[in-house]
C-alpha cells in the first residue's frame, strides 16, 4: 500500500516541476545538442562524442568530440519496483547485483529490468549529489518500442568492448566479441518506463560466471502516417551507454517489410531486435578513447548489470583456447567463460564448426571436452560423468589413448574444467569430406561436434557473408 502513494506523490511533483520548466524537463530538452544535418536533437551515446556516417558510410565517420552525449535513457536491474521519481544507483552500488541462469525457450532465470527516461531538472540538475542519475520523465517512452540488450564481459576484466583499461593489449579478439549482444528483445514503454525481464544466452560455471551489462535504445517522437505507415516514431533515437555507436537510420533498420505499430497484447509480435554497431570503436583513437567502453562496477550511470550462471548440464562440447588472429564477433557466440585446468577463470572457444589448426596435421591439436548446457555454455557437472568419444573419417583421438584405438575413447569428466584431449588428422586418410564429427555419448545424451579439416572456412560465417552479399545485390531487406 505504501508504494502507490509514493508513486502518486512522485508524479505529482514531476507534474508541478514540468509545468514550471517544461522546456528543461524530458528525455530531450533544449539542452540537447542539435544535429546540424537534421536540425533536431543529435543521436549520441552518453559520454561519447557525436558520431555520424561520412560520405562513404561508416568507413569514414564524422566524429565531433565537442558534442558529447548526455544521459537520456537509464536501465536498472534488480529493483523491487520501478522508481517513482529519482533514478536509483546501479545495482553494484546498491550491493544488489541480480543473478540470472542461462537457459533457452524462456526457461532460464531472466534479468528483471526497468528502462527509464532520465531528465535533469533545473531545480535539481545532474551533479547534485542526491540526484546523480536524474529523475524519471513523463511520457516520452509510452507506446514506443524499447530495445533492451545485454553484453557479456567474456574475459572478466570488468569492461565490455575493446579496451586498454585492463592493461592487456593482446585480447582484442575476445573483447571484440563482447560487442555482440548475448540477449536482446523488444519491450513496449508504458507509464513512462519499459519494464520486463531479459533472458541471457551466455553464462558460466562456478568460478567463471560472467557479468553482463544491460543497455537500451528507443525511438522517440510522434507516430506519423507518412513515416513507415505510422508504425514507428519519427525519432530521434536515444540510448543508454553502448559499446559502439549504433546504426539508427530507420530505412536501414526496417527495410522493405511492413511493420505494425506496437502491440503489447501480442507477445509473439515482440519477436526481437538486433542492435549492431555502426562505428566500431578503437580505444586508441584520440577523438574518443575509451568513451564507448562499458564499466561494470556501477560507475557507468546509464547501464546496469547482472551475473549469469550457465544452465543445467545437457551434454558435452569441444573447447579450445581462442585464436587471437581469428574473428569471434558473430551471432553464434563462439566464446564462453570457463574454468581452466587449474580452476582459473578463462575463455574458451566452443565453436559449432571447429576448424582444426595446422598442428592437427602433425603432433595433434589440444582441446578439452567440457560439460555444456543447452545454449552451449560451459556448465557445472552434478557429479563425475563417464563419456564415450567416437571420431569419424580422418579424425583421430590421439590422447588420451587407453585402448589403442584412435577412433574411440572412454573418459570420465569430473567437473567444469573438463578433460584434455588431443585431436589429429589421420595422415593416411583422405581429406574428403572435409567435415567430420566427434560424437560424445554420455548417459543417454548424444552430442555431435562438427570438426573441419584444417583451412576449411567456417560454414556459419560463410553463410552469413553470402546472405548479406545476396541481400545487398538484390536490394531487398
Amino acid at each position: 500500500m505504501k508504494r502507490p502513494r509514493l508513486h502518486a506523490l512522485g508524479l505529482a511533483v514531476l507534474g508541478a516541476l514540468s509545468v514550471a520548466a517544461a522546456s528543461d524537463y524530458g528525455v530531450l530538452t533544449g539542452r540537447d545538442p542539435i544535429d546540424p544535418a537534421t536540425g533536431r536533437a543529435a543521436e549520441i551515446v552518453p559520454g561519447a562524442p557525436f558520431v555520424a556516417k561520412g560520405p562513404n558510410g561508416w568507413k569514414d565517420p564524422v566524429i565531433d568530440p565537442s558534442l558529447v552525449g548526455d544521459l537520456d535513457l537509464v536501465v536498472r536491474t534488480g529493483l523491487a519496483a520501478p522508481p517513482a521519481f529519482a533514478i536509483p544507483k546501479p545495482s553494484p552500488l546498491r550491493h544488489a547485483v541480480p543473478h540470472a541462469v542461462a537457459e533457452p525457450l524462456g526457461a532460464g532465470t531472466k534479468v528483471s529490468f526497468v528502462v527509464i527516461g532520465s531528465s535533469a531538472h533545473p531545480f535539481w540538475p545532474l551533479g547534485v549529489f542526491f540526484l546523480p542519475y536524474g529523475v524519471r520523465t513523463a511520457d516520452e517512452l509510452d507506446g514506443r518500442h524499447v530495445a533492451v540488450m545485454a553484453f557479456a564481459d567474456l574475459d572478466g576484466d570488468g569492461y565490455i568492448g575493446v579496451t586498454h583499461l585492463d592493461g592487456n593489449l593482446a585480447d582484442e579478439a575476445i573483447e571484440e566479441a563482447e560487442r555482440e549482444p548475448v540477449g536482446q528483445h523488444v519491450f513496449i514503454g508504458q507509464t513512462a518506463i519499459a519494464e520486463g525481464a531479459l533472458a541471457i544466452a551466455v553464462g558460466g560455471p562456478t568460478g567463471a560466471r560472467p557479468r553482463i551489462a544491460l543497455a537500451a535504445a528507443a525511438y522517440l517522437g510522434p507516430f506519423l502516417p507518412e513515416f513507415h505507415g505510422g508504425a514507428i516514431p519519427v525519432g530521434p533515437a536515444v540510448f543508454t551507454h553502448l559499446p559502439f555507436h549504433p546504426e539508427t537510420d530507420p530505412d536501414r533498420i526496417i527495410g522493405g517489410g511492413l511493420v505494425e505499430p506496437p502491440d503489447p497484447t501480442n507477445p509473439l509480435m515482440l519477436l526481437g531486435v538486433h542492435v549492431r554497431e555502426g562505428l566500431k570503436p578503437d580505444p586508441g583513437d584520440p577523438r574518443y578513447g575509451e568513451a564507448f567502453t562499458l564499466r561494470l562496477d556501477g560507475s557507468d550511470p546509464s547501464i546496469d548489470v547482472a551475473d549469469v550462471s550457465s544452465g543445467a548440464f545437457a551434454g558435452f562440447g569441444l573447447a579450445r583456447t581462442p585464436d587471437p588472429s581469428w574473428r569471434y564477433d558473430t551471432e553464434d557466440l563462439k566464446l564462453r567463460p570457463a574454468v581452466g585446468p587449474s580452476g582459473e577463470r578463462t575463455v574458451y572457444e566452443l565453436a559449432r564448426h571447429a576448424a582444426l589448426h595446422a598442428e592437427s596435421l602433425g603432433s595433434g591439436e589440444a582441446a578439452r571436452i567440457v560439460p555444456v548446457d543447452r545454449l552451449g555454455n560451459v556448465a557445472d557437472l552434478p557429479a563425475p560423468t563417464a563419456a564415450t568419444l567416437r571420431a569419424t573419417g580422418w579424425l583421430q583421438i590421439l590422447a588420451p589413448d587407453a585402448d589403442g584405438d584412435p577412433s574411440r575413447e572412454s573418459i570420465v569428466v569430473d567437473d567444469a574444467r573438463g578433460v584434455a584431449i588431443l585431436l589429429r588428422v589421420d595422415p593416411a586418410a583422405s581429406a574428403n569430406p572435409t567435415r567430420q564429427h566427434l560424437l560424445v555419448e554420455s548417459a543417454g545424451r548424444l552430442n555431435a561436434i562438427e570438426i573441419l579439416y584444417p583451412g576449411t572456412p567456417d560454414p556459419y560465417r560463410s553463410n552469413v557473408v553470402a546472405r548479406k552479399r545476396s541481400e545487398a545485390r538484390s536490394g531487398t531487406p
Partner: protein
Amino acid sequence: MRFSNESCAGWRWALVAAAVVVFGGAGERLASAGITAVELSLDSVQSFAGSDGVLLRFEGTVLGAPLVQIDYPLHFLVFEQATGRYVRFDMSSGGVSGVAPQLLDGASASESLGLLYEGNALVGCEVVFVGEGRVDVQIPKGVLSGPLEAYAFALYEGDALMSNQVAVEATP
C-alpha cells in the same frame, strides 16, 4: 534490412506481425521474408545415431536469438519418405509420433496444422542445443528408419509458417 559493404548491419527490429510475406506456390505462406518476418529456412538436417537415441540437427534460419527469450511455438517435423511415419518435435512441449501419408507429396500448412491434433506423445525427446543458426533435438532410437525428410513450421495467428523441406543426411 539492407546490407551494404559497410561493416554495420544496423539496429534491426524484427517485428513479426504484418511483416510476413505471402509467397505463391500452392497457396502456402512461406516464412522466409525479410528480417521483419518470422524467417524459417533449413540449410540442412543431419541425424546422428547413438546407442540410445538419435540426434537431429537442424541448421539454417531457425529463429535463433528469439528462442532464448521466449517459448516460441516452433515445430520440427521429420518423416519417413516411404511411409509418412513422423516425429513432430514441439519446442514447447516435446515429441509426438504418428503416421501421416499426406506428407509424402509435400507438406502443406494446413496438413501441418492438422498434425497438431494427431499422434502420440513420444517419451525421451529433448532439446539438446539452441543457438543462432542451429537447433539440436534428440529422439529415441528406432522410432524412424530409412530415408527421411524434414521441415520446420511456426504457428502465428492460427497459421503455420513453413520452412522449405529437405532430405535428412544420415551421418555415420
